[in-house]
């Protein structure tokens, strides 16, 4: 096999992995959009907040240390203990559930029956709030996420693939990050368990009923408020998973909240209401932008990854306005 071909394969594989990472974020969007019709812009900030909370709990940071120091003139920052990763994750999940309850009680509950754009704006407000809140609570410096996920290139794969190239070609084997492989496995487990949950449990059925028709679900005795708390908790959990993966990849920092923007074209491609759509959309975007950067990028100045996903989604939508797997939009006068 020629080296060029192998490079292309490597680019495609890396694109698939990157796509999985986008899908992880997009998944949270889809869950909330399906269950409550809310386009939750705060999903990316939720991932950031979850990751910050996890690191904060793990390293025993004192919450609001910065604020306390500024107000009382003290100098505190750490409790001085370390919490094992497993317990820290469980505690973070608890925090995210608490967050879901607060969001439902103080925001969504007051905005029932408002237009979608109002709800969308409310989640942007929420995103701003959480960004500031997270920074005040845990400090705004870049943190490293360490929950025991391996990272770095896989030597085994490199050595295994080096023999594939034809004799005399300059080829050193494929580079694929171990972290990306773990992320792919986690994403598969997550999607399968979410699908099983929504198909075969009572709560899952209730979720789907609410997604289908709020009024009808209410009339058969499903509590909308409870469902919303559950959905936001699950979305918080998905955000935590995405936060762990992205945090381990590039550090827990502000730019993490911007991955939400990258998840938007993924959603558009896959359709806002489809979980498999989120995954496949993510894969298409991931492969598409890596291939485009690899093949066309050098000719037009590079850094095409910033916009390629959006333009691809835009082109796509012109031909299929509801996305790949979205419900067909039927309009009546």
């Amino acid at each position, binding site marked *: 096999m020629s080296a060029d071909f192998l490079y292309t394969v490597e680019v495609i594989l890396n694109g698939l992995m990157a796509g999985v990472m986008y899908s992880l974020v997009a998944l949270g969007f889809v869950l909330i959009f399906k269950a409550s019709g809310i386009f939750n812009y705060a999903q990316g900030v939720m991932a950031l907040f979850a990751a910050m909370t996890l690191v904060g709990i793990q390293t025993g940071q004192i919450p609001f240390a910065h604020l306390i120091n500024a107000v009382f003139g003290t100098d505190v920052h750490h409790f001085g203990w370390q919490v094992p990763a497993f317990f820290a994750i469980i505690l973070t999940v608890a925090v995210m559930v608490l967050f879901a309850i607060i969001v439902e009680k103080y925001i969504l509950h007051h905005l029932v029956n408002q237009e979608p754009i*109002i709800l969308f704006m409310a989640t942007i407000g*929420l995103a701003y709030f959480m960004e*500031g809140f997270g920074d005040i609570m845990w400090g705004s410096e870049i943190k490293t996420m360490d929950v025991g996920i391996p990272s770095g290139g896989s030597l085994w794969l490199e050595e295994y693939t080096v023999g594939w190239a034809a004799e005399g070609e300059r080829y050193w084997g494929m580079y694929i990050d171990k972290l990306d492989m773990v992320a792919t496995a986690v994403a598969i487990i997550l999607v399968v368990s979410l699908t099983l949950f929504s198909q075969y449990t009572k709560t899952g059925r209730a979720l789907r009923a609410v997604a289908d028709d709020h009024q009808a679900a209410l009339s058969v005795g499903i509590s909308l408020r409870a469902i919303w708390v559950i959905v936001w908790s699950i979305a918080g959990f998905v955000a935590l998973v995405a936060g762990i993966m992205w945090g381990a990849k590039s550090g827990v920092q502000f730019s993490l909240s911007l991955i939400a923007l990258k998840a938007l074209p993924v959603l558009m491609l896959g359709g806002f209401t489809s979980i498999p759509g989120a995954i496949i959309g993510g894969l298409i975007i991931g492969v598409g932008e890596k291939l485009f950067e690899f093949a066309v990028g050098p000719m037009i*100045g590079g850094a095409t990854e910033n916009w390629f996903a*959006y*333009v691809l989604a*835009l082109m796509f939508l012109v031909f299929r306005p509801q996305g790949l797997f979205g419900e067909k939009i039927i309009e009546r006068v």
Partner: protein
Amino acid sequence: MFYRESGDFKKTYQDDSQTFPIKFDRRRYYVVMAIAFLVLPMFMTDYFANAMMIPFLVWAIAALGLNILVGYCGQLSLGTGGFMAVGAYATYKLMTSFPGMDMFSVVLLSGFVTALVGMIFGLPSLRIKGFYLAVATLAAQFFLVWLLNKVPWFYNYSASGQITAPERSIFGIIITGPHASPITGYLFCLILAVGLAWVARNLTRGRLGRSWMAIRDMDIAAEIIGVNPLMAKLSAFAVSSFFVGVAGSLFFSVYLGAAEVTEAFSINVSFAVLFMVIIGGLGSIFGSFVGAAFMVLMPVLLKNILVGGFGWPTDLAAHLEFIIVGALIVIFLIVEPHGLAQMARVLKEKLRLWPFPH
């Protein structure tokens, strides 16, 4: 009492359909104009002009533009930052290519350039609707910023990739550049803001504005009664982008003086303008101004109180500002989803009946 229509007889149709039907409102409008044009420039400090009034006017123009698109025509757009960047770079190219051109022509021409670009990116709106369109306009945001950053011709091959406003004037009065006085900058922005608000008001209550609103309320129904969706949507995109382009042009040439596209026209700009429109009130000219005032003045106020008053570190104050802005947006949406303009409308209704509300 003083806020009444009674006794103010309208004798012509023109009188009857004027913007301020109540005499008190008309007088108040002239007073506000007099203060803005005559009184404020006399007492204005440079800090007040630079940190508050100029950004307020610039953002108000941008909010007006976005309000035409989102509030009147119902097309959700997140590409405002990108269109402002187009306005700014068009201004830069015009200023450097034609040094003799006066600033009014430069700013208005930049607006027209942006309107063209806006129409191109408005084309998908014929197929895509709602949130899908909002995300599609993100393509405009990211693509335009990338393009302006990557093609050196746009920033005249300068090594830093920055654009810097050279000194330009109207009738011998310096408007831009390091020697311009903030007061003249303020007056320049004020004239444009008032003029554009007048244009927007008259467009939105004319045939064009009504076709926009018909599209907003239900596009299929509008199409059936004979509104051409192609014309309505594209004209909304064009007019909106024109306003946004003018705002971008002023933002760069009068307010910032120098700009770098990825810094000054990021996605946050798009969101900030959308906030202004929502907080001020969708589909309201007055609302665009109030929303802009709110979003410009509040951070300045907060910073002065927290850093100046309490002596807190600036980064902490910045985080707190995020919290407060976020919380205020949510609270506003819960209390009054139709924005500050709706509050003003309710207040006016109450005033009309006061002191006998029944």
